[in-house]
């Protein structure tokens, strides 16, 4: 078991990062920390994809010296997926940060639980 983990240390690190991020996103009460957690979670997945897509000794699939053998190059799809994933993650973070700013202006706190209490005081059930 440990041997497998040591051989695949990049994947193991990725899964640990995912776990840390996931837990932070779920359990942190502070909105900014939640967002940091979300970014760690996404980074874990990107690390997993990037490490999976890289084969040592091979090059990026750009033909320079006329070498056309597929075995000389790595598959570019995982890198493309990571880039797409990063774009998605940035947009989601931007929206969440803008919502956080809006909530902070209204409730002067970043603690989600406190916000709930304050919101119930300020706006009655209708």
């Amino acid at each position, binding site marked *: 078991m440990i041997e497998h983990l040591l051989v695949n240390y990049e994947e193991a690190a990725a899964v640990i990062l*995912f776990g840390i*991020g*996931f837990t932070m*996103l*779920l359990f942190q009460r502070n*909105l900014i920390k*939640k967002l940091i957690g*979300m970014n760690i*979670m*996404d980074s874990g*997945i990107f690390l*997993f*994809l990037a490490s*999976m897509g890289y084969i040592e000794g091979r090059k990026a699939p750009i033909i320079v010296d006329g070498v056309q053998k597929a075995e000389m190059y790595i598959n570019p*799809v*995982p890198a493309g*997926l990571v880039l*797409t*994933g990063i774009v*998605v993650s940035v*947009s*989601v973070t931007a*929206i*969440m940060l803008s*919502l*956080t700013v*809006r*909530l902070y202006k*209204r*409730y002067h706190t970043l603690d*989600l639980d406190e*916000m*709930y209490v*304050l*919101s119930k005081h*300020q*706006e009655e*059930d*209708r």
Partner: protein
Amino acid sequence: MDFIRNFPLFTIVLSLFSGVLCFLLPGKAAKRYTFIYEGILLVLVGSVLLYTIRTGGSFTYVMGEFPAPWGNEIRAGVLESLLALAFVIILQCSLFAGYRFVEEDMDESKVNLFFTLVNLMTAALMALIWTNDLFTGYVFLEILTLTSCGILIVREIGRTTLAAVRYMILNLLGSGLFLLGVVLLYDLTGHLLMVPMRETVSVLSRDPAVMPVLTMAVGVLTTGLSIKSGLFPFHFWMPDTYGWATPASASLLSSIVSKAYIFLLIKTYYRAIGMDVIQKMPIPYILLGLGICGIVMGSVQAMHANNLNRMVALSSAAQIGYIYMGMGMGGVNGYTAAVFHILAHAVTKSLLFLTTPRLAEVSGGSLLFRSLQGAGIRNRDAGLFFTAGAFSMIGIPVFAGFASKLQFGQAAMETGNLKVLTAVMLALAVSSLLNAIYFIRTMIRIYSTGLGITRKEVPVRAHHRAGYNIPMIVLTLGNLILGLFSWKVVQLIHLGFSMFR
């Protein structure tokens, strides 16, 4: 005729373009444009449905003419077209009937942004329905999450923003898990396109050492999508999210967005993993169990709600449970019942969510039950449509809810498993009883004038009244068609599933 094969792509690209265009247009023009565009969309999707029924087969649109396994693909069959058509009709009805409230909740200068979001959401919905590639599914899943959060926060009050943040956090957890699942499957199979992935999965599943990893990958993906669609125990975001949203948004989120996630899951099971492999995993049993728990818990919580919107939202949690229960039963019949219920619940829930604000309007703006006394008499149209929706939810014959319960019962019989049959029948019985209790209680409330409450009728302008009644009649008719001609719809769904292979 073959030109119709381009239509699925048109629905995505035109919706994206419309989103950008609405951003540039002033509010009123954006509204008019979107209403016209939704009409065009209806024609496009309707043509694809007729084309697939007539040809009796599905078709694949290869993007950029790069064949599988390199390129990206869109696929259209009867099932995809049927759902797309239902979603577009409900989208249109929700916008028509809910627009007045959007105007009230938003600054006039920002109304075009609402339509920008709606069009981008339509693009994401269409892409999720048509896509044949899991990663494309992920990208549009995130676009759907962002836009649905956007249409939530158009109502600029603190509690809506808080509900939106909660909704986003849960959705981000779901998206993260879905992405991890997709990446694990890609790692195992080397494919992102659904059909090549299924072929590799089928070979891999013969190796007992790979099965646990495969199960984990599918499990992670399923957990992600079930969090996003609100399966028990992840349904706690529903009451706040639907309860505080503007009515059009609540209707869109509950009847379309959450269903699109479930449809992606069904498509992944059928086309990317293969039903024979799914049946070897414990996942269907877990879905069945959670579905049944969702049905009971959702109904019990709905009974204790003090606010009409919260009650309707919590009953959504129960209805999502039904859909997962169908998927848990497995087999074509179980999945057919699940898809039928997606349609039945979509038309019913949009009807209810668009009716509740009208009842509140004549009750001092309050959705609390004590204020709603006699609301159905003060606004007779809204009362009537609410009653139709409630009848369907309870499962009165002629309405869609009854037909879908019948489908679930039949599917359970056909599993041949006594334990599954008993559990499903009990869940159906308990849930129908609880639904009847809280919906009939609400109907008595809105139709009785006791306690001396004598609020006056709030006059509604004629064009607003027509703009509301027409979409509501369409939704009620949709409900009746699903109820009366359920055999025809089931036939279509069966045909759709037969094309899924």
